[in-house]
């Protein structure tokens, strides 16, 4: 009796392998591999980079944000400034959702309200709170106002308010919409094989230029080396999440090339409310203790961009006259002595283990700091615990990151304004400048304000300023795709290379 088990099992397994679906691999299919699969396909429900990347192919917004923080038309055909706080927006009349519903002012209003629906728990809600409900003028025209003048307004709308189909959502409900969305973007969902791939197909009724690839598949390959291997063997066409030490291999392979995308700005936050970092001299000492050049050379192949102040050197508003803090461990020790720590000081460095290359950075930093009078105790934490402790004000010195966005308000406000987060630092002058920065609509004047902000924060040093590590995408030689600073894999722009 047991003798039959083995042959049966063998038969079963063999059948399983032959029946397994294999993706069609022809010239009009583009396969993209990310580090993780999306957690859902409803853009309003996730702020995770890999999820949003997939969503941006299916959904569309009113504007297409550009690399210099301006916007181009998308669903909005033209717009005019009514006053400092209001825009009148004219929608295109030929845009439709992938199920045929029209993209009209009703849909815009519905989308706006959905963002604030508590059942959705939209993580982007905070960014959109400054907007008031759109007022419909006619089928394809509406006005939208902000509570105060808000310079980044259209840029933010361009990213965080996807326009979604009211009728469809009312019919299937939110949970189903997260798995089977209908958007107005260039690709529509064919099938999502959970744990394996998201299969999409070009939408014939798309108002804009049709994407060059008819079929689009997103896979998840969590292992870095496997992902790179998949690119080099031709299994996939585009990959994200390429660690520094794998980049040369791709460049030299002759089969693929690198294209820059988002910059990851690493920083070390300091708890300015408690000892020892409540003393600005100690904070300065920490900034002098970091050997940015050595770490850049050793860990990042000299590809990181060293930061002077908190505003990324690639973003407008960064003060070009600021120079990064030099590496000067002697000065650190001296400052510590002045601050009352002649024998150095013990600090606890916390960091989230999911960040790439974080372990090596933390250990390298700890070793360097040791030579400058700081005795560092490492505290690696998982993502969840790190976040909790961060919000719970339990950290002393911590490494975190932010993406190096072209729009300075995007992160400066979130990170430094006391209304947004005041867990470790609060400065009324900074608050003032941030408020002014976002309500001044003139670009030149804004740049000046942010210059000032950069200087103030450089001096006050609530952070140890580190560097921006430019991320890259790996792209197969027969595909033409340029990465963008938002780091999203918006494959409508990809085309075959002759």
């Amino acid at each position, binding site marked *: 009796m047991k003798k039959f088990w083995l042959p049966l099992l063998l038969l079963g397994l063999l059948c399983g*392998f032959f029946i397994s679906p294999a993706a069609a691999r022809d010239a009009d299919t583009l396969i993209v591999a990310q580090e993780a699969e999306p957690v859902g396909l409803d853009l309003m429900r996730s702020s995770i980079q890999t999820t949003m990347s997939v969503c941006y192919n299916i959904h569309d917004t009113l504007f297409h944000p550009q690399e210099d923080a301006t916007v181009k038309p998308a669903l909005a055909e033209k717009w005019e400034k009514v006053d400092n706080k209001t825009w009148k927006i004219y929608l295109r009349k030929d845009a439709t959702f992938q199920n045929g519903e029209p993209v009209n002012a009703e849909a815009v209003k519905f989308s706006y309200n959905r963002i604030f629906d*508590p059942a959705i728990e939209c993580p982007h809600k905070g960014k959109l709170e400054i907007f008031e409900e759109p007022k419909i003028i006619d089928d394809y025209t509406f006005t939208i106002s902000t509570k105060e003048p808000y310079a980044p307004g259209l840029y933010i709308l361009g990213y965080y308010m996807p326009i979604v189909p009211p009728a469809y959502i009312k019919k299937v409900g939110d949970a189903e919409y*997260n798995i089977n969305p209908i958007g107005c973007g260039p690709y529509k969902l064919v099938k999502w094989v959970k744990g394996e791939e998201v299969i999409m197909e070009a939408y014939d009724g798309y108002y804009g230029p049709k994407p060059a690839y008819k079929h689009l598949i997103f896979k998840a390959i969590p*292992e870095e080396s*496997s992902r790179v291997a998949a690119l080099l063997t031709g299994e996939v066409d585009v990959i994200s999440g390429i660690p520094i030490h794998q980049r040369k291999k791709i460049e030299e392979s002759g089969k693929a090339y690198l294209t820059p995308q988002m910059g990851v700005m690493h920083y070390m936050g300091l708890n300015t409310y408690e000892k020892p970092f409540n003393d600005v001299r100690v904070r300065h000492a920490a900034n002098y203790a970091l050997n940015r050049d050595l770490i850049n050379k050793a860990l990042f192949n000299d590809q990181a961009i060293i930061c002077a102040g908190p505003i990324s050197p690639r973003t407008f508003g960064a003060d070009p006259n600021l120079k990064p803090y030099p590496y000067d461990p002697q000065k650190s020790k001296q400052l510590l002595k002045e601050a009352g720590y002649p024998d150095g000081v013990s600090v606890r460095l916390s960091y989230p283990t999911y960040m790439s290359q974080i372990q090596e950075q933390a250990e390298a930093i700890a070793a360097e700091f040791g030579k400058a009078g700081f005795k560092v105790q490492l505290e690696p934490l*998982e993502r*969840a615990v790190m976040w909790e402790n961060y919000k719970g004000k339990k950290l002393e010195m911590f490494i975190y990151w932010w993406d190096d966005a072209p729009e300075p308000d995007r992160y400066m406000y979130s990170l430094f304004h006391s209304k947004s987060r005041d867990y470790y630092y609060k400065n009324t002058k900074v608050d003032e400048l941030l408020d002014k920065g976002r309500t001044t609509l003139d670009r030149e004047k804004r740049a000046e304000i942010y210059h000032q902000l950069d200087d103030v924060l450089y001096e006050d040093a609530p952070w140890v300023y580190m560097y921006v590590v430019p991320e890259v995408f790996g792209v197969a030689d027969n595909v033409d795709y340029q990465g963008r600073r938002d780091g999203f894999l918006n494959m409508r722009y990809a085309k075959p290379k002759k």
Partner: protein
Amino acid sequence: MGRYLVKRLWHTVYVIIGISMISFFFIHLSGDPVMLMLPADASKQEIEQLRHRLGFDQPLPVQYLHFVSNAVKGDFGESLYYHVPAMNLILERLPASLELAFASMFIALIVSLPIGIISAVYRGSALDMGTMLAALFGLSMPHFWLGIMLILIFSVKLGWLPTSGRGSLAQIIMPATALGLSLMAMFARLTRSVMLEVLSLDYIRTARAKGLGEFMVIGKHALKNALIPLVTVAGMQFGFLIGGTVIIETVFAWPGVGRLVVQAIFNRDYPLVQAIVLVLAVIFVLVNLLVDVLYVYLDPRISYLEEK
């Protein structure tokens, strides 16, 4: 037999209840998931609202009872991270883990049975010593290290096999071998020792005397008797397989339940962790039950008296 079955079923039930309580208890002790679910700029009020909506502000025993009453209907709540019902996620990933477990068991059996038999028959020879030494090495290797070494040799250096993922025969060989190696070693040793015992039994000698071919002797009588301990050990090791898939799935990016649960624990995704732990425990317990019943069926002498 009936009474035995009833007893074992009762055992199954209380084990499952016990496990659900322990996992519930732990994951709630381990921290607050609500903080994680909301963005940085969420207000205190929003945090409280969400907590209330998800029922986390009620006392633990009440939460547990809610959980149980839903669980028996098959509803394990919604994953806090993925926003889909926990059960759906598990059902999507479970086949992958089971496939891996069975493939490992299969590879282990296919390799170890002939080796064990041959070693027993040629006892004392260089072949015997060699295979037993190899088995010992196999038992001593951490399975995840073996997985990494297999990737190094067969994917990186030789380029024969893909490094990760699921879907083709080429992709399942390495993880199944890594996971199955210690089983292989264990089965080989077990088979050998059982075969040695059985080969010396009287009725085998008689069968031999009757002039039957050596092969028939081994094939028919000896193997059938070796089945009992093999089945028992296989059943017991199933528990190891379940635990082992956790790490192997991570090494090979295998889209199974093991990897899902580790991420869920890190994400403080209560409903998902509970659901997975329960499902795995149920599988384990059912497999044991099956093994026990099979055991009794295979050898009626082993009775229900064992439970005295």
